[in-house]
Every structure is written in C-alpha cells, then in structure tokens.
C-alpha cells in the first residue's frame, strides 16, 4: 500500500467519534497548558499517563499528540500578550510579538501566529507521513550497534550540544542514567541499586520523575522567587484580522519557518527552540523592513511560530520510526506507548499500522481544531492568565500528586515524588537542565540493552561498534556535537548556544 492509502485509512480511524473526542480534549488541554506559564506539554502528558491507563491506547496517544500540538499554539498567546513565554519554544515569539501587542497590533500578531502554526502543522504533518516510511525502511537495516550509536547521538544533543554549559548538561544526563539502572536488569534479572527495597525493584517510574521535576520542582522554584508584582497583560485592541500587507509579509515567513523547523525537529538534535531561533535569524536577515525588527515586525512572529509547530511534527519522526525521543515531551510520550506495551519503531508500522496512521492523521484534524480554538476563542484563553498564582499552583500540585497516587497509592512513591521534586528545585537553582534527566532515564536502559546485544554478538569485541559505517558516522557526529560546543564556549562564543538552550518541552 502506498503512503497515501495508509494516510486515508488513518483518517478513517481518526474520524471515529471517540477519537475525535480524544483529539478535542487533547488540543483543548494542550492550549490551556501552553497558555499557562509554568506548565508545559511534557508535564501535562506525564500527569495524564496514570489517568489514561485504563483507556484505549489509540485514543490516549491521539490525545497526547493533541496536547503536544496544542501546547505549541497556546504558548504564543502568552508570549504575545504577557511577554512571558508559556513554554520554552515561544521565547522568540515574545521578542516581536509583545512589541506588536504594545503597539495595539496584538490581534494581527495572534492571527499570524495561529495561522502560521496551522500552515506549518499541516505541511509538517504531511511531511511526517511521507518521510516516516522511508526512515522505517532505513531503520530495518539498523542493528543493535547502529541503534546504540543513534542513542549516543541523541544523548549528546539533548544534554550538551545546546544550553549554557556542557558540564551541567552532562551531569543532568548522568543523574538520569543513575536513576535508570535502579531496578531489575532486563537481561540477567539481577537487582541493581535497589538495596533490598522491594519498591525499587520495578525501577523509577518515568512519570513520577517527570511530574516531580516539572511540577513540584517548578512550583518550589516559582514560590521561592517571592512576590515580584503582577505581570502586565496586554489587551487585544482593534481587529484580530490581518491586513493585506500582513498576509503578504507573513506567508513566506510561514513557509520558511516550516522548512527550517521540520528537519531540526526530525533530527535527533534537541527541541523546538533551536528551529525558532534559526527562523528568527533568517527572517531578520531577509526582511524588507529591517527597521521594524525589535519594534514589532510581523515576520518575526510568523516565522518562529511556524518553525516551532513544524519541529513538533518533526520530533514525531524519530519517535515513531526509531523509538527515539529527542525532547522531554517525546520522552514521556514514549513512556505512554510503553504503558500500553507498544514499542515505537519500524515494527510498530508493520504490526499496528492502524494505530500509527490513525495517530498521524489525527494530527491533521487536531491542527484544524486548534485553528478554530485559537483564533475566535483567544479571549477565553487570555482569561486563564488571570487565575491567581496561589490557586493555580495549588491546583497543579494537587493534580501532580493525584497522578502519582492513582498509579501507585503508596507512601514510598509519594516520598520519591517529594525527593525528586526537591532535586529538581535544587537543579533549577544551579541552572542544571531538566530534560536530560528524563531522557536519560527512559533512553538509558534501551541504550544499555542495544550495547550489550551488540557486544554479545561480537563476543565482547568493542571495536565492532566502529566498524559499521553507519554507526561510525553517527558516533563521529556525536563526538563533534560534544566537542565543538566546548571549543566555542572556551573561546567565548557561548552566548549563541545558551540562547539555543533546549530545555523543557
């Protein structure tokens, strides 16, 4: 069957009323968490994992993907109206978008962000559908050593290639690894790092860790900042509709943003943030109105917003075809697949095409829903920003513990939640990134398995890792991604990299 037929089949699956309902819940929740500062899609999916345990796998995954897409839309609203990005992929949007809002052009800024996200999401989701089968074919020739090399590359790019310190990125990653070896070894059945405590034999739950680090760590950090006075919310004045000139200036930026964002997301190279920065730089260089940059140039909103939605779709390429998460949200979605006993990868396309293609097709539908939710209803979302902080964070903590209690109502599990929450708080104080811990915890055991398989095949000969051309090239890229930023930082060029920090989502 061709990709096109698969996609049509997927649309049939996605258009089932139940799946439409899940998609609607997903995009609504996603937009809400995107708008609210302090919680992102990664945390939301982690919170919902235990709650959805008893639901249908296809529907839940459709909902999670809707949350991911919705978070990317909602974040722009906060950036534009509050000058405080709702999630990390919208930092650049705040640069020009908030200036536009202050100049009374908040409406067109929101419109170009929403329509740009729609255009980018549509093109990038179609690109996902057409690229995925090729990657699957490629992945079929991958053996354990190639997978291991690919995971090493992902470790390096997630932890140390971007962000402001190689040391702190790697430290976060190794803390994740340390947590990952707790529990029963998958190949020999030996208990490792569990010190005779039965609760530790199952290992650390990804959801417990993610909820603790993202919800509790963040709440502690925000609370510890004290009262810094209320943020100023810009109201949407004037028309939300874009003028002819706005359209003329936006459409090229949307397409360029999509072209930049999708490949960046699809490569194992960190989060959506990077694409947004590159897109902003490209728009700044190409614009016919350079004097407007810094004062509210519409291209500066259109390009990065398109780029972050395109890279969200791009992230799903390695996740679905290789089982390789490159962002924290993708890592938790991987945990979501595993919760239902599904392992994303080339086999999933063969064994469960309905689920995969239904998921991809539902993204097209979710995208349409998001356009409707975000343009006419933007005023409703802005109201979310007026919830007082005490109620907002008390509610977040309530739901954070609800998820953990629902999955495993034990004092020990809540104790771990608290411990990791404090750990996340301390890491935040010292500027350690959180995403590498989550990625290390979920991808670490998979990498170990592949490595041990590769070495078992070669009977312990380590050189086998470098004798496959694909693996050698991937490891060489990983080494370059580790060393080049170190040199750049040592020579004082680190600012660019710290701006590209791939942090939360």
């Amino acid at each position, binding site marked *: 069957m061709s990709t096109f037929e698969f996609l049509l089949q997927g649309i049939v699956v996605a258009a089932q009323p139940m799946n439409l309902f899940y998609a609607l819940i997903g995009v609504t929740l996603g937009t809400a968490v995107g708008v609210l500062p302090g919680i992102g899609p990664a945390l939301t999916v982690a919170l919902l994992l235990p709650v959805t345990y008893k639901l249908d796998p296809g529907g839940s995954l459709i909902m999670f993907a809707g949350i991911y897409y919705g978070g990317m839309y909602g974040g722009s609203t906060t950036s534009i109206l509050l000058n405080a990005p709702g999630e990390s992929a919208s930092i650049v949007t705040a640069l020009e978008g908030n200036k536009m809002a202050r100049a009374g052009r908040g409406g067109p800024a929101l419109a170009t962000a929403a329509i740009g996200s729609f255009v980018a999401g549509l093109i990038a989701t179609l690109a996902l559908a057409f690229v995925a089968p090729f990657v699957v074919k490629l992945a079929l020739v991958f053996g354990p050593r190639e997978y291991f090399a690919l995971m090493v590359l992902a470790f390096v790019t997630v932890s140390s290639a971007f962000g402001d310190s190689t040391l702190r990125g790697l430290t976060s990653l190794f803390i994740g690894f340390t947590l990952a070896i707790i529990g029963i070894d998958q190949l020999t059945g030996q208990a490792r790092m569990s010190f005779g405590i039965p609760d530790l034999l199952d290992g650390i739950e990804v959801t417990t860790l993610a909820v603790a680090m993202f919800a509790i760590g963040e709440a502690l950090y925000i609370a510890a900042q004290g009262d810094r006075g209320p943020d100023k919310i810009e109201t949407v004045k004037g028309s939300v509709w874009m003028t002819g000139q706005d359209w003329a200036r936006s459409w090229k930026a949307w397409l360029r943003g999509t072209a930049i964002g999708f490949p960046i997301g699809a490569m194992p190279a960190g989060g959506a943030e990077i694409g947004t920065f590159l897109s902003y730089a490209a728009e700044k260089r190409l614009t016919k109105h350079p004097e407007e940059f810094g004062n509210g140039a519409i291209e500066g909103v259109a390009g990065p917003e398109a780029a972050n939605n395109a890279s969200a779709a791009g992230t799903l390429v390695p996740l679905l075809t290789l089982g390789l998460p490159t962002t924290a949200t993708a890592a938790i979605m991987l945990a979501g697949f595993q919760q239902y006993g599904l392992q994303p990868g080339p086999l999933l396309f063969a064994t469960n095409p309905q689920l995969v293609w239904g998921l991809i097709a539902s993204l097209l539908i979710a995208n349409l829903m998001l356009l409707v939710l975000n343009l006419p209803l933007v005023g409703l979302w802005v109201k979310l920003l007026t919830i007082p902080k005490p109620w907002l964070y*008390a509610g977040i903590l*309530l739901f954070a513990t609800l998820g953990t209690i629902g999955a495993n109502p034990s004092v020990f599990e809540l104790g771990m939640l608290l411990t990791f929450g404090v750990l996340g708080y301390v890491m935040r104080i010292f500027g350690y990134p959180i995403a590498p811990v989550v990625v290390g915890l979920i991808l670490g055991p998979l990498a170990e398995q592949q490595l041990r398989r590769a070495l078992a095949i070669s009977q312990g000969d380590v050189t086998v890792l470098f004798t496959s051309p694909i693996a050698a090239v991937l490891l060489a890229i990983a080494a370059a991604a580790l060393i080049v930023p170190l040199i750049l930082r040592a020579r004082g060029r680190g600012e660019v990299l710290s701006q590209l920090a791939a942090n939360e989502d």
Partner: protein
Amino acid sequence: MTKGNTPSNERRRPDRAALAIAVFLAGLAGLIFWDSSRLARINSYSGIGPSTIPFVIACGLLLLAAWTVFEALRGDFPERERQEIAPVVWIIGGLAAQMLLLKSFGFSIATGVLFAAAAAGFGRRKLWFTIPAGILLSLGIWLLFAGLLQLSLPAGPLEHLFW
C-alpha cells in the same frame, strides 16, 4: 544537595555550594561502585554483564565531579537568584503532610491539606478558609476519578460517607 538556602552574599571563589554538588556526585558514584561490586562476580562470556554499565556510569560521575570541582574553584558557576525559604518550607511541608495522612485519613483530607499549604506558600495564609476549600475540591476530584475513571485513590472516613 542541600543548598536551597545559599544566600547570594556568599561570593565566588571558591563556590561552596558547587563543591557540595561535586561531593554529591562523587558519593553517587561511590554508591554505584559499592552496589555493582556485589554483581561483579557474575559475568557472561561476552565480558559484559549487569555491572558493566553501572561501572561506566560511575566513572562518568567521578569525572563530572572532578570537572565540577574545577569549575567551582574557577568561579564558573552562574549567579544564583535569591531564594525565599518560607514558601519552600510550606510546600514541602504540605507534600510531606499529604504523604503521611493519606493512608489513615484518605485522599480528600490529605490532599486538602496539601492544597492549603501550597496556597499558603504562594501567599494565601487564610488556612481556616483554604483547608476546607481544598478538602471539598479534593472530594469532588475523588468522586470524579475514583468513581467514574476507576482510579484507585485511597478512601478515608470522608470518602466512606459517599461510597
């Protein structure tokens, strides 16, 4: 890792909090060495067994600890923002209270206390209002999730009135 209370008047060079992190990392490495030494006897014929990867990770942690010491001595760690202690204590206290109350008092009462403590951490200190409000909210959530979604949330005296 205890340095939530490092005041910003502690100036650079050498950075004591960063040194504490290095000690923590080295301690973690030691813990892994100790644990994997127990497993080391059992090796498969490929020369790589359950203790190999932990050994590599522990070595990595030691390297990172050394690197952290180096950066701490050079004062390379970033400035920390001033942290208020009281809110942090409120929230941690709330989570601990929930953990301890959960089994005997049930989900709603334990979580209501957490809710009030968290709100207090963010400046709403009217506990006579926030605790009952939190308990009512949690009860509603319990009825929704335990009743409709069949999530196994612990029941206490309050929940038994309904179920």
